[in-house]
């Protein structure tokens, strides 16, 4: 446990001492819940269509694959025309592109960011590394299977996949969403304990609440 997260005694302005427990006092401890779809199928359909056509990617380049996302913004590929854009904050994003290898250290940040994205949210694993470790299959510090830790909607193979492959992957993701199968966030909530156990097995210094709202 990091020192700043440990319980501490502080003296209030009135001179009375009391205990502060950062994890309890500073963080919301509620676990994630399964969020039901809209009451009406038609509305949920509309929503799914809109979700599919409005993919906001969290601008978090986790590995070398991030370099392959830049061309998507350029005139040559111009992903914007597909309703795809990059947002700087997880709160406003619904698509997390894990761009390449994921070290254990980065995984912790990825989990935080993923959990801060609002439901429904989608994960695309980009490149071989996210699938089976790729060229880092024997690394002491790189995870080999992303779906052990996060629900993944689409994997895009390659080392690295070309931007065209990414676009194809996004189109595939759109199909999944439109079909109402992009329920990764709810899966995560359902199998929360399993995911947490996996995460904690590789992340040894777990210095955050179990769910990062």
């Amino acid at each position, binding site marked *: 446990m990091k020192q*700043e997260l440990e319980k*501490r005694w*502080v*003296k*209030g*302005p*009135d001179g*009375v001492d*009391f205990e*502060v427990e*950062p994890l309890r*006092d*500073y*963080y*919301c401890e*509620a676990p994630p819940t399964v969020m039901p779809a809209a009451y009406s199928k038609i509305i949920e359909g509309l929503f799914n269509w809109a979700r599919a056509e409005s993919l906001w990617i969290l601008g*978090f380049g986790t590995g070398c694959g991030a370099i392959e996302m830049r061309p998507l913004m350029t005139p040559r590929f111009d992903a914007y025309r597909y309703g795809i854009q990059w947002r700087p*904050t*997880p*709160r406003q994003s619904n698509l997390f592109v894990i761009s390449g290898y994921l070290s254990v250290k980065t995984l912790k*940040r*990825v989990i*935080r*960011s993923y959990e*801060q994205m609002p439901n429904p949210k989608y994960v695309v694993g980009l490149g071989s590394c996210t699938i089976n470790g790729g060229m880092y299959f024997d690394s002491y510090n790189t995870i080999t299977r992303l779906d052990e830790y996060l629900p993944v909607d689409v994997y895009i193979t390659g080392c690295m996949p070309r931007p065209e492959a990414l676009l194809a992957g996004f189109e595939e993701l759109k199909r999944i969403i439109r079909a109402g199968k992009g329920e990764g966030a709810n899966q995560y909530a359902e199998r929360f304990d399993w995911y947490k156990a996996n995460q904690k097995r590789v992340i040894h210094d777990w*210095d*955050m609440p179990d769910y*990062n*709202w």
Partner: protein
Amino acid sequence: MVSAIYILAVGLGAAFLIGLLRDEWRAGAYGVSLAALALMSLISASWVWVLASGDGRAVDILTAGTLPPYAINLRMGLAEAVLTLLINLTGLLSAVYLRDTLFKQGRRALATLLVFTMASCGIVLTRDLFNLFVFFELVAIATGGLVLLSRDQRALAAGFKYLVASQVITVLLLVGIIFAYHATGTLNIDGMAVLSELVIKGGGLAFFLMFIAILLDLKPFPANGWALDIYESAHPAFSAMLSAASASAALFAADKLLLIGGSTWLPVATGIGIFGFVGANLFALAQTNDRRLLGYSSVAQVGLVLAVLGQRDLLGDRYLFIAGGILLAHAVAKAGLYWLSGLVEGRKLTAWSALQGHPLLIFAFASFIALLVGLPPFPGFYAKWELVIALGGEGRLALLGLILFGALLEAGYLFRWFGQALKRERSLEPVAASSFKRAVILSAVAAGWGLGFIWGALSPNGNLLLALPLLFALAFLALEPLSVRIKNSVAIVGMVAWFLLTLPSYDPLQLIFAAVMLLGGALILLASYQTQGQRIGFYPSAMLMYAGLAMLIVAEDAFSFFAAWESLTIGSYFLILRGQRSEPHALSYMVFSLGGAFLILAGFALAAGGDPLFTLAGLAKVAAPIAPWVFLLLAIGFMTKTAAVGLHIWLPGAHAEAETDVSPMVSGILLKAGLFGLFVLLMAMGSQQLYGVELTHLLLWIGALSALIGNLMAAFQEDAKRLLAYSSIGQMGYALFGLAMMNHLGWLMALMFVINHFIYKSMLFLSVGGVAKRTGTRDMYRMGGLITLMPLSFIAVLIGIIAMSGVPPLSGFGGRWIFYNAILTAEYRLPMILIFISGPIAFLYLFRLIHTIFLGQLKDEHRRVKEAPFWLVLPQMIFVAFLLVFALVPGLALRRVDAYISQFHPEGALGWEGLTITSDFGYWSPISIMIVVGVIFASLFAWLVFVNRKAQKVKQFNIVFAGERPFRPETTHFAWNFFAPYRKALGFMTEPLVERFWAAIVDLLHASADLLRRLYTGNGQTYAIQLLAFVVVVYLLRTGL
């Protein structure tokens, strides 16, 4: 009637009698002395009684039974009676005070004391020159003896230096007397006065020698090192006598001599006097020893009286009233202060902090200082008023200016001393416990207040001590032992009752100010319920301020206006001084306020043309060449109170360091006094031109600059209360700007600011004060996230800043709307640019205020903070309600004022039909705005609640942090140096130029005082040389003139 000669006879007889007693009969000797002094006092008192009541006339007592010049005659007139009473009482009280010392020293000391008193009386009574000399010599010898009463070894040297000086004086005096006699053939003063032509012609030098010798006995600055040494080292009781009794006697002697010299010598007296007044006060700035400081002050006060004596040609028969007022105030105060210094162990000024915890002594201290400075209701005030009015009427402006400057210096060091005594860490040495000594001091206090009453009764301007508000305030002195709750209730009831009582007499303008000051004051006083205990000193000060405000509003003549102004200044000074670390700020407040007050006084003096009963309405009739100067003086005076830029440096500290419930008083209410003054001024005088410059244009610029600088400075403060204080400067700048526009809407806007600023600034100060109280800090960056813990305070601040920023739909917008309509008809446009830019800057500090306190990250140590106390929150909530009501129906307050202003500016009145207020240019419907905004807001809110009803409430660290998590609240709360980029862009405008300017002036004064006072080398011979040099210089100047 007992003949006055018995005063001398009793004194002398008792002294001889004591000489006959045996050494062991100390109590007997002491008893005889006291009895003699009491008897002497009684005789004087009976003469005062008879002469003052008009039954008797001045009586000449002929010794040897023949008329002068064949025998010595004494005279007992009213002045003589008063002075001998003063001398004898001082002697008596000092004897009481000196009981222990006198017991130890024995009968010789007692006899010397009696001789001293008797001889001082003799100086006053005698009309014979040589007799005068004899009495002076007796005083000198007695002084030489009494100096040795002191335990201070250094007194020995001081006494010797004194004797050396007095030897030189003797030589001069005797030579002068003999030649004067030679020229006139008489030694009788009145006889010589008749023959004064002869004196001037043949015996000019002789008179000069006599006159200068008497003046030297007054210890004139700067030939007075010997006297200062005595003041510093002698027993305080003796210093009291020296300062009060012998100086008064010597002054009277000088006055008598001036009878001989005639009007040609008056300027000499004035010159020496005023030089001494300013010079000694300047030197006193650098003093750290209390008694030496008092010595300098004595020298200064005597100089002032001498200057007044020199103005006898101008003052006519009022000169006794004036000189007497100043002299008696000085004597009582100085005696009292010297006696008080005997209770204090240490000799540093800061050692007077031992007085803390002795409210009665503090009260005495404060009374004495007020007496010395000439604050109302003490005699010096009335005297100064008449003096200054007379000087102004005659155009003796240089003298007037010097007197006011000297008085300001004096007030500066006296109040600095008072502040140090009250606020420095309490000295460990206890205050001497003697009840005798205290009784003596308190009798001086009583005498001071009594003199105040008498002078008030004698003054043509009416007695301030009969003014109901002032009496009400003073009554709280008697109520001090009661608890806060009772006193607070009395205060609130009193203020509301006075408001209701005077309600019918107000015109709409006065009504608004009265409502803000009295009702508003009562409202703020609600917050004072939260304090515990007795809160000694708070209520008299606060009520003095409110009394001043109440009297200010209804004042019709310049005198009562000025008296009210001074009262509220003193009251607020004491209030501000109560703050924890407010000592330097209270001092700078006092110095600026008194400086401003003196400018106002000078302005009135110029305007009055010598009429002490000058009315405010008379300002309108002031003629052209002086009118703009009057305007300028008064305007600057009033602007020190509104803290216009350049004169603002006192405000931030004073407001910020004041107590929680005092800050809103001094900010929300006190500042309005300045605005009221400006209103009165502009109503009476309109706009004036000086060298072709329209003075109101100048005010426009000052107002605009104040708005800009105030707002800008506020944006860069870390201390919440300082932020609010700077914001007040800005807000007052707006109001000043509105006034200076000299059109209908400008004035209306200024009034709107009066109301608005009172409400939201009081509310914000209370709220921030409550937060500071709970969190134990005023630094905003140490707070944060308090919204959930202190929701009501948050609401108050929220409403306050919305109102203040002028965002619709709250009332601040009304002010902005009127402002825009007003500037459309203003002739002068450039300063508006500054106003335009300062508007958005207000957002900077307002957002900072609410964000860094209530939003952002809650700190560890504040997690258990509670809402502010009920009594702090209650007035805030009332203010909130009032703001909302005022936002909806501003017409309630403004409509009548609008009509009233039409008297002065008929064009541009607003239309008040229906719900919409119309101007010549636009329209504004507060209720419609409120409804439209309300409906839109409510619908959108309902929609959001519908779509977002399941939102998960999260805690403060549940923020996206670039994949990381916050470290600690302190590192996550963005608050310190909030507007760093802004500082980069415009920070050059926040350079404290004004502060540096005033600091340079103060430093210059101090440095020169410190350098020049080295003139007093401490060597008795040097002193004697200086004395002779003084004589030569005066003679050369005199003949050169």
